[in-house]
């Protein structure tokens, strides 16, 4: 982080409404925790402490945090790979994240699934499968079931990238949500590349928000680098869905500030994009806003950063002492009706 110019206390150089102070500050702290955790995961990966891939959310934090904060207990959330800030804001413990990445037997996935494939379905945090678009109809199903049971006042949210909008599953599920008038908020994080493929090879409509029109779904566009815009627009979309106005699609334009995974140097990203407004770091912009608005001082932000780092270090230290999964103690049966599992004798 470059040093921030301290703001004169009480002097507001930004014209943001004071009602934004609380949510903005809260969101910033989740973003900061997510970024700090992402940085730690990247270090652990480079140190060979993490098996498999590491997928980070750098550049997506403002959008994700806004989603996590717009949701309430009882809402449904199926985050995608770059939604760490949203997961944390929704209530996923840092320990769940670290345990899953490091393969602790005590994590929610117990070494059976790793990295971003984690969740707690009983707590309405759904673990993504890798096939993009597949979680949308699953969220629809949870919402559908709740409505059958005469519950109301809840929403379901999931995220998809620009590449994921090209899948059949995306089309089927968004159309299904529209036909069933479900309180779904579909967040499209258009970060301009699907792995290495630029959007010009993905779609030709003006903006992905236009796709919603074809489904009869309300759409909202926003600048994903701008936390205030994320809070406002995502908040509005979630309220609309919660109030019974049917599915909402939010399309955010932003740039992923890392590789697809930590194995990827993202050399395919056009350097001009990195220098353009869409390539700005949402975390730095939010930090500057906090200072400009006089909502936080440098010292305060540094102490939040320190607090985040300490929480993460404590979690990593704890997880490093935890048992790894034991192949001899593992129950190698994929059915909950254990008596129906096929038995294959060892040769």
């Amino acid at each position: 982080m470059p040093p921030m110019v301290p703001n004169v206390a009480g002097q507001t150089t930004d014209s943001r409404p004071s009602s934004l102070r609380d949510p903005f500050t809260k969101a910033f702290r989740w973003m900061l925790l997510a970024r700090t955790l992402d940085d730690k995961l990247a270090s652990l990966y480079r140190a060979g402490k993490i098996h498999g891939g590491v997928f980070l959310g750098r550049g997506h934090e403002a959008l994700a945090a806004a989603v996590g904060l717009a949701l309430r207990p009882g809402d449904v959330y199926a985050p995608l790979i770059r939604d760490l800030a949203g997961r944390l804001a929704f209530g996923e413990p840092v320990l769940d994240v670290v345990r899953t990445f490091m393969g602790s037997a005590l994590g929610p996935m117990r070494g059976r699934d790793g990295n971003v494939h984690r969740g707690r379905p009983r707590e309405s945090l759904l673990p993504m499968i890798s096939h993009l678009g597949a979680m949308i109809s699953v969220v629809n199903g949870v919402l559908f079931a709740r409505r059958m049971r005469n519950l109301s006042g809840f929403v379901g949210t999931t995220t998809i990238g620009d590449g994921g909008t090209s899948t059949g599953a995306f089309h089927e599920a968004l159309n299904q949500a529209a036909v069933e008038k479900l309180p779904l908020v579909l967040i499209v994080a258009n970060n301009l590349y699907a792995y290495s493929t630029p959007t010009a090879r993905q779609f030709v409509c003006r903006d992905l928000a236009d796709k919603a029109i074809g489904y009869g779904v309300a759409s909202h566009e926003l600048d994903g680098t701008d936390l205030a815009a994320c809070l406002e627009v995502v908040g509005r979309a979630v309220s609309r869905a919660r109030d019974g106005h049917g599915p909402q699609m939010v399309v955010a334009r932003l740039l992923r500030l890392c590789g697809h995974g930590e194995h990827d140097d993202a050399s395919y990203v056009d350097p001009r994009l990195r220098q353009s407004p869409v390539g700005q770091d949402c975390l730095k912009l939010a930090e500057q806003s906090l200072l400009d608005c006089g909502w936080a001082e440098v010292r305060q932000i540094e102490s939040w950063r320190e607090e985040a780092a300490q929480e993460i270090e404590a979690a990593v230290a704890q997880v490093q002492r935890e048992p790894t999964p034991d192949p001899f103690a593992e129950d190698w049966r994929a059915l909950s009706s254990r008596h129906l599992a096929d038995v294959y004798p060892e040769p």
Partner: protein
Amino acid sequence: MSITYLEAIREAQARALADDPRVFIYGQDVGAFGGAFKATKNLMKEYPGRVLDATLSEDAMVGLAVGAAIEGMRPIVEMQFADFSTVGLNQIVNQAATLFWRTQVPCPIVVRLPSGGTSGGGPFHSQSLESVYAYWPGLVVLTPATVEDAYSMLLEAIALDDPVIFCEHKLLYYHLKAERLPTEALPIGKARIARQGRDLTIVAYSAMVHEALAAAEELAPEGSQIEVVDLRSVRPLDTDTVVASVARTGRLLCVGEAWPWGGVTAEVIARVASEGFGLFDAPPQRLNAKDTPIPFHPHLWAAHRPTARSIAAAARKLLRQ
């Protein structure tokens, strides 16, 4: 009073809807129309709000069922034809089949597949896909051959906490009849001896059980006593019952309507060979559909699938060895 295989499927769903408020049915045309085959006839009227027409979206149909199951419901998804379930394959094998293992949260969904060939069905309305689904861990795959099993196994499938692929055979829908619905039944996972014999074991499932029984009847006057094992469930596979039968007969012929590469018939032979190689008096054989897409014309179709005649011919050859 008699009841058909199709009516048994309808009755099982009606009873599940009546007994368990968590059950609902979701599929194309299942509502007011009662389903392409009428397996949900009048159910929407009897259970309003619980029998719902789906968009023409097999992927999203299964995805929705998985979400509803996570929320504690027991959805039944009707695929209009088994063939179209491949559009929903991803949700079945990657979402439903992995959920419990990954999260310990069970996924109690039933996906009904109107399966198998009928005259005139052609390449895309005739497929038998039980071997495909049986490949993935985390699924139960059922292949009822009788009216009684269609009823009792569907009820048991709905009550089960795991995802079930229920392969109901379209050829049996209208022709197969029973006097009444069963009051007791073998549990899922147990094969049934459909006919006793001492010279040769034919292992079959679904509609092929009836072809095998007809072949056994044809061979009886020739002095050959054929034992027919109805697998009932292809996953789990009741290897014990098959091995016990081969121990009595010494000869094994496996019959399936699916294509020959891999699959249920290959699996049965692999298991019996592995666990009971010494029981064989002759090399085990299998008989499947021909290795092409399923033809439309009745002359071609009748030769494409195993029939009582081709099963009897294969059995004669095996009996001579």
